[in-house]
């Protein structure tokens, strides 16, 4: 059985990617399961999707804790502990990572002993939503049991309702990824179904049953949501060029949906990067175009380089 876990952010097409991959396996004669997993959060927040494919009926259920392949659409998720990207990755697993850098560097950085395949990142904005489809295309090639026509047919089937243009761009991206990882075709191996006796209980913590006052005490503090770091959702970062800024912060700070632009005493704006979700509305409404959009990946790399 192939057990494949896709990781990305809401809006990067992870769910669509898993549907495409599932349908492609199905077209190649496999039994298939595919299911996305996401919480209450929205676009930009970490999510995953789980695909199982086997030549015999699949009896396993639920999230994949021992993956044969982890396909990561957005490498910045490695810094988000809750995303749990590397859960269960061992020497036998393959990590497919969409991003920059070479496989050896990533293996060293992540201390992995298994195979790492890097899928060069696509263009930043327009193709971001196709990350899931790109990873599906690459995963299909890594498995080595899905042909080009089978991949194309799966995309046509899954995107039929979105029209011919969306289908064509998605197909082009998925095929580009399918071709890009050709040297690694077949590197992904099926693993055996897990024996029930091998089941390891999750590492959960048992909480004693307590009265509601203790288990869920009343909270009187205001605006506690600031404890949630929605800045981790961001794939693009707004950056103010203060030399060009007109100090008209009533514009950008009012139009930021997330209350993430503070107005300083001198009427200049300050972006709260712990909470900015990277919608880029401020970039599009700033009259003198004093805010630019920077890929979060590049911004973090720059910060790392500047750190002592």
């Amino acid at each position, binding site marked *: 059985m192939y057990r494949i876990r896709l990781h990305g952010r*809401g*809006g990067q097409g992870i769910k669509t990617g898993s549907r495409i991959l599932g349908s492609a396996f199905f077209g190649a004669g496999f039994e298939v399961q595919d299911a996305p997993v996401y919480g*209450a*959060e*929205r*676009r*930009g*927040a970490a999510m995953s999707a789980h695909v199982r494919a086997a030549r015999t009926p699949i009896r396993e259920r639920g999230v994949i804790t021992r993956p044969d392949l982890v396909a990561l659409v957005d490498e910045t998720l490695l810094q988000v502990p809750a995303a749990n990207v590397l859960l269960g990755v061992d020497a036998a697993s393959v990590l497919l990572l969409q991003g920059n850098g070479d496989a050896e560097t990533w293996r060293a950085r992540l201390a992995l002993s298994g195979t790492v395949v890097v899928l060069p990142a696509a263009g930043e*904005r327009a193709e971001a939503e196709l990350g899931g489809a790109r990873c599906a295309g690459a995963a299909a090639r890594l498995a080595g049991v899905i042909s080009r026509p089978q991949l194309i047919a799966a995309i046509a089937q899954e995107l039929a*309702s979105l*029209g*011919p*243009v969306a289908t064509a761009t998605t197909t082009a991206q998925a095929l580009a990824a399918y071709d890009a990882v050709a040297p690694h075709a077949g590197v992904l191996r099926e693993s055996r179904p897990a024996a029930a006796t091998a089941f390891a209980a999750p590492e959960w913590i048992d909480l004693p049953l307590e009265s509601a006052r203790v288990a*869920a005490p009343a*909270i009187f503090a*205001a*605006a*506690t*949501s*600031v*404890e*949630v*770091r*929605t800045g981790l*959702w*961001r794939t693009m970062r707004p950056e103010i060029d203060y030399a060009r800024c007109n100090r*008209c*912060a*009533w*514009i950008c*700070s*009012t*139009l930021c*949906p*997330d*209350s*993430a632009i*503070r*107005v300083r005493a001198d*009427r200049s704006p300050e972006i*709260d990067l*712990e*909470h900015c*979700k*990277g*919608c*880029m*509305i401020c*970039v*599009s*409404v700033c009259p003198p175009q004093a805010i630019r*959009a920077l890929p979060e990946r590049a911004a973090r790399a720059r910060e790392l380089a500047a750190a002592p």
Partner: protein
Amino acid sequence: MNPALRRMKDLPSTHLLGAGSAMCAGCGGLLALHEICDLLGARTVFVNAASCMTLLASYPFTPFRGSWLYTAMASAPAGAQGVRDALDILSERGRLPPEQDLTAVALTGDGAATGIGLSATAGAIDRGLDFIYLCYDNEGYGNTGQQSSPATPLGARTATSTGAHGHPASKMDLFAIWVAQRPAYAATVIGADPLDLARKIDRARALKGPRLIHALAPCPPGWSFDPAEGVEIGRLAVKTGIWPLKEYVDGRVVHTHVPHPRLPVEEYLKRQGRFRHLFEPGRDTRVLAQIQSQVDAYWEQVCA
């Protein structure tokens, strides 16, 4: 008009709604809510019906400075009634000084406002309930994956309107339904025009009785557009006349902005994936003409 709200510059520069909430990046509903909170102040009780915004306050986190009550989807106005009654009882018994009184605000999506919650709303208006009903309208059941609601516009593709011509019915006119019941106040707003919105909230705040604030809420995933374009799409909704900005006060409807020249509706439609099938692969001239003629007819009647 409040002389303190003449220019954009006069808008509040500190923001009351906390960051860190679970709405999508670029949510047009959140944009309107954050602007509204700055004018309403902290002394509010938001009464929510099941919707995207239910995720705003999930224990132990809340972006609000005041209280929050979550009700069943049909019941926000009934919840607001209970809150108002409780406050009134406290006041009568001298246990709530006037300066500590709170405003009850029903906060729901269009699905609750135009569909399942409409009957509870009609009852609350009929009883003259002193509350503000804030409907953020993303034109569908957003939280469950954007199925059609009565507020879905003609021609839009939704999870349940997948036919070649999109949604077959026209958008329900919630504002007109409210006005027919002679409420204390009703207004349409949009986050993309914060000054117009601020003046209306300022006016609504000073009144008593049932008050509607109906905010069009561009929704990146539901309408399928890049979140960066949310404000521009909102402005186009106003400039094309698709979303008339108006208020009902003292028994009269007044348009607070008459678009002139009025842009063709296509300028608004073509920016959104939910209308893409009207342009690709071929133009759906019938539906496009129908949408334009509905908007034309509206403004002819306004300007007559």
